[in-house]
């Protein structure tokens, strides 16, 4: 990976440039991502919106240095993904909470601090403060099996944020929640993101979730996965259910839904 993108001009932003991801398959190669590029200002909230199978989760994992790209460069405020990851600048919320079932809620939140050698007392205090932030006061000693789906996701968010990461990755974090819960969690995420000032990158296929949370939406199509449209959302913050139901957002929702449907159909045509 070259450092060419980490010129002074790109510092203070996340810059994704020319990302290509190919997987070997029987009798050739499958192109999961083709020439993907975009940028996010520090402290911003960006969303990769796309149908399932468009490679948006793969893209997220490339930016977070979980998997390498075949080609292309990612620059996070002047650092490579590997540098940023090992410096502990990432928080990651997975599709499922992925809590460790043998640890209590608060011990799960403590895990990233423990890994960094933070002392017992400070670790506990910071984890408790984070549980408070996500609205889980009094649930710190619960085992994950005894938490509801929404609570488990709050714990996962608290764990991702407890190290005060510079970048928060959210990989379809509210899959499987009913629509009402999802809206509640969206409002929570917006509040927490504003409170922490972290830069957030969300992956979702839910259009209203994207509108509710994002400064910028990058719409992805598939075969190969690529960015087919970009939208900047100007709605004032904090956004509420009402602002998402305002005429201009409903119009945007209709437009984005059409873009998504089109990319589903383009596959059905093949």
């Amino acid at each position, binding site marked *: 990976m070259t450092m060419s993108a980490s010129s002074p001009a790109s510092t203070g932003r996340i810059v994704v440039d020319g990302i290509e991801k190919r997987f070997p398959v029987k009798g050739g190669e499958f192109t999961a991502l083709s020439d993907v590029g975009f940028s996010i200002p520090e402290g911003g909230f960006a969303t990769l919106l796309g149908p399932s199978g468009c490679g948006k989760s793969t893209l997220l*994992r490339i930016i*977070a*240095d*979980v998997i390498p790209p075949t080609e292309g460069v990612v620059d996070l405020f002047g650092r490579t993904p590997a540098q940023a*990851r*090992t*410096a*502990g600048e*990432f*928080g*990651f919320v*997975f599709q*499922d*909470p*992925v*809590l*460790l*079932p*043998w640890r209590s809620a608060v011990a799960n939140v403590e*895990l*990233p601090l*423990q*890994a960094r050698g933070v002392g017992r007392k400070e670790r506990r205090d910071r984890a408790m403060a984070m549980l408070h932030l996500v609205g889980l006061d009094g649930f710190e000693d619960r*085992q*994950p*099996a*005894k*938490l509801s789906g929404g609570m*488990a996701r709050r714990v996962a968010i608290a764990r991702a944020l407890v190290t005060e990461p510079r970048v928060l*990755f959210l990989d379809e974090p509210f899959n499987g929640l009913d629509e009402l819960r999802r809206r509640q969690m969206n409002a929570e995420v917006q509040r927490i993101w504003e409170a922490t000032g972290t830069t957030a990158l969300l992956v979702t296929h839910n259009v209203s979730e994207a509108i509710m949370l994002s400064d910028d939406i990058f719409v992805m199509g598939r075969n190969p996965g690529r960015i087919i449209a970009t939208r900047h959302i100007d709605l004032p913050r904090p956004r509420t259910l009402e602002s998402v139901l305002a005429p201009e957002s409903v119009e945007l929702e209709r437009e984005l839904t059409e873009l998504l449907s089109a990319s589903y159909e383009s596959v059905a045509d093949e």
Partner: protein
Amino acid sequence: MSRSFRRYAIPIAFYVVVIVVWQIAGQSPAPGSVLVAPTVLLQTLAERWQALVLVSGVTLAEAGAGFLIGTVVAIALSIVVDRFRLIGEALYRIALVLYAIPVIAIAAPLTAWLGLGMGSKLAVAALAAYFPIVVNLTSAFRTLDPRIDELGRVLALGYWRRLWSLRAPAVLPALFSSFKIAGPAAFIGAIIAEWMGAEIGLGVMLLQAMFNFNVPLLWTVLLVATALNGLIVLLFEILGRVSVPWHQSAKGGAAR
């Protein structure tokens, strides 16, 4: 009430019938039959209990020590297989081949090599015990929820930290279920090793009873051995439940 009554009553009635029939058949055995009535077994048990406790203790000690050695080796081997792909693969294959040798066949040369004392018993018990643990642990590491590794990567944890905090607890249920196979295997391994030559032990007593055609004692030793084997399984079952309480309520490595 009546349902739970039937659930217990029917098996109990079945065993009562079996024992009664066994008793009747054992009281008037056909010539040359090795059938021994349950009352005779109980009588032998009462007469020889001190000797039985002593020899059981010896065999259990051999099996226990062998099991510990086998467990340590198996865990170390599984970690090497997990950590170092290439060397691990080769070692894993050697472990497979080693296990293909029947315990009874390897017991003879091991006894010839290590002598009639504890050493040969420990070696055979350890050999019998390590394999189920290696196979279970290795496959548990391989089929571990990949998101656990992704979590470790995002948190920038090193291999040992990841092993200790994330992967080892996740494979603990597999380890305990392998103990339920390895424990009895070590016990049987110790008995087999005793057959190849030993001063004292359940296996020795079994052989002596056989050569003296002491059929009641033969059956009594078998009874004791079976009961001990059952207790070993039970012990690890309980130990597993106590040590991995999350496993029952939250299935798999890290569903939540």
